[in-house]
């Protein structure tokens, strides 16, 4: 839109809002969030409380991620927003539009061109590089929450590194089902210290957190917590020597691009319940199908 990045497809839906500060939040609030982010980067995996604001979108719909994005966006950033891996799911469209309207930043659907990627439930298949920041929307930031409902208790457990219950829970899964029965929001240890909830990404995406060149930021708006995984940080999924961590694999290939390595969504295509599998990461799928074609503008 403003021609800062000619490769980035811009899609200003509606005019730029004039009544609000750049990227909606006032500068004091952004500064407060950035201070929190600095702390989060300095203590990888530690949940930093922050004075989360009410956003004009409902809690649970990405307000945490949006506040972090608002705090880090600059005028020359190129923003990509995905939900379930896709750029064109309604909530991704809505959030991308929000920043196009309030910040006037260029937006893109192409992973390699984005400088800031806000995501819900996925990490893009295309490997990220060091000039990129991935912002996760987090519903429940506390990995111990479903074992211990009290925040006072869980903060103490983190302080003491008291994570035995977590392994007991995983062990009970194995004893009962023969497998660890956690398939998403699979807990990880960050930098050999804090156990962290990677947000509800499928465990398929967990290995992408490890030694990632891109900065990973996590924002939970309702719970008013933010945390981070700095570039090139060790992120290890919890497991046991005799039950090593493993990711999901499909016997099928993507019906569109034929990929056998990406995370596949299952679609039921007729009344008889026939199934097809397609890439959840729509941009990755598109890139494999049209590697040389210039990108079309979304929403045209």
């Amino acid at each position: 839109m403003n021609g800062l990045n000619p490769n980035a497809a811009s899609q200003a839906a509606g005019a730029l809002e004039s009544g609000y500060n750049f990227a909606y939040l006032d500068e004091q609030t952004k500064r407060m969030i950035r201070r929190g982010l600095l702390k989060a980067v300095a203590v990888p995996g530690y949940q930093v409380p922050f004075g989360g604001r009410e956003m004009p979108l409902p809690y649970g719909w990405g307000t945490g991620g949006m506040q972090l994005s608002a705090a880090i966006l600059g005028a020359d950033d190129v923003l990509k927003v995905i939900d379930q891996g896709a750029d064109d799911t309604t909530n991704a469209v809505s959030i991308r539009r929000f920043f196009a309207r309030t910040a006037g930043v260029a937006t893109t659907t192409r992973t390699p061109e984005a400088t800031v990627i806000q995501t819900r439930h996925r990490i893009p298949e295309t490997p990220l590089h060091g000039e990129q920041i991935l912002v996760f929307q987090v519903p429940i930031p506390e990995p111990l929450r479903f074992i211990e409902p009290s925040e006072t208790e869980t903060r103490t457990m983190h302080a003491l590194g008291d994570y035995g219950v977590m392994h007991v829970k995983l062990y009970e899964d194995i004893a009962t089902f023969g497998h660890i029965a956690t398939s998403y929001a699979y807990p990880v240890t960050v930098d050999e210290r804090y156990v962290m909830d990677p947000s509800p990404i499928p465990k398929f995406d967990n290995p992408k957190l490890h030694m990632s060149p891109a900065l990973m930021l996590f924002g939970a708006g309702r719970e008013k917590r933010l945390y981070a995984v700095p570039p090139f940080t060790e992120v290890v999924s919890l497991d046991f020597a005799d039950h090593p961590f493993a990711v999901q694999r499909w016997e099928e290939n993507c019906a569109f691009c034929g990929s056998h390595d990406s995370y596949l969504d299952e679609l039921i295509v007729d009344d008889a319940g026939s199934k097809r599998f397609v890439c959840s990461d729509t941009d990755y799928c598109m890139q494999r199908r049209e590697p040389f074609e210039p990108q079309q503008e979304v929403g045209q």
Partner: protein
Amino acid sequence: MYVAVKGGERAIDNAHLLLAKMRRGDTSIPELTVEQVRQQMPLAVARVMSEGSLYDSELAALAIKQAAGDLMEAIFLLRAYRTTLPRFGSSLPLDTTQMLLSRRISATFKDLPGGQLLGPTFDYTHRLLDFALLAEGEHPGPQVDATAQLESCPRVLDLLAAEGLLARERPSAAEVPDMTREPLDFPTSRAQRLQALARGDEGFLLALGYSTQRGYGRNHPFAGEIRIGEVEVWIEPEELGFAVPLGDIEITECEMVNQFVGGKGIEPQFTRGYGLAFGYAERKAMGMALVDRSLRAGEYAEEVEGPAQQEEFVLMHCDNVEAAGFVSHLKLPHYVDFQSELELIRKLRKQAEAPMQAAAQENRA
């Protein structure tokens, strides 16, 4: 079929237009004005201002109109607007003894200085549908004595406190916390708790208060005093060094008197629970007062046994904007996580079926 599961910008735009159409209803009927909502639905406006934490009846009425009468949505609209406003400072504590009362009742004393003032209330109406309201018409005003003077109305609980029968509340000189700027940290101060409860959902507080009456953390409440009316708001700007009035706001204040048998070095005495809400909001103020008192269990070394006494449980779940948001987010697509669960369930079932099949074969053999 790929398109079917995706939404686009056009779908969103059209959804907004459909919503606007639903809100407007039949266009042959005159459109509701914001001023009509403000004047004729004052209790809805009061609730939206209280839980929206913003005293502005016009904006609250606008929010109600925009939300097509969905009060929680209206509260959310007002909150989202409020968060963009600058903060200039805190007011001085409201002096509710100087209220211009429209209603004042006490259930603990038959008569008291200033008297009981029933004022406008649903309390003694028979809940019979008034079919006369189906038609528009004149409504006769109340009979008033133009010469009547409001007597001084000291607070009922202060009278008890003067006798030493009620636990004294100590004024705090500490800076007023702002839970919309600093996240709650447990254990909380009473000021933070009252702030959270004042923004809390009326229905949730009502139910929790009710649960204490039914025995889940019982504390024997009496409605010591409920007063509704206009009170002046004063602020003391730093550069002035003296206080100036900002204007009047309508509030509802409720003080519950609760029995306390004493123990652990504290003499038997009454204790209090406090509720305050913008506008005419008696039910909210009473629910809040009950829950405030039950959350003081720790202060009086009472055993915490009911949900209404657990501060983390109450304060983390009383906000309806947070609750409505998180519940409604279940409408967002979750197919990536659901796919993970599908895969897991299939894997677990396959494993469970294998030994069963083996057993079946053994039986046949």
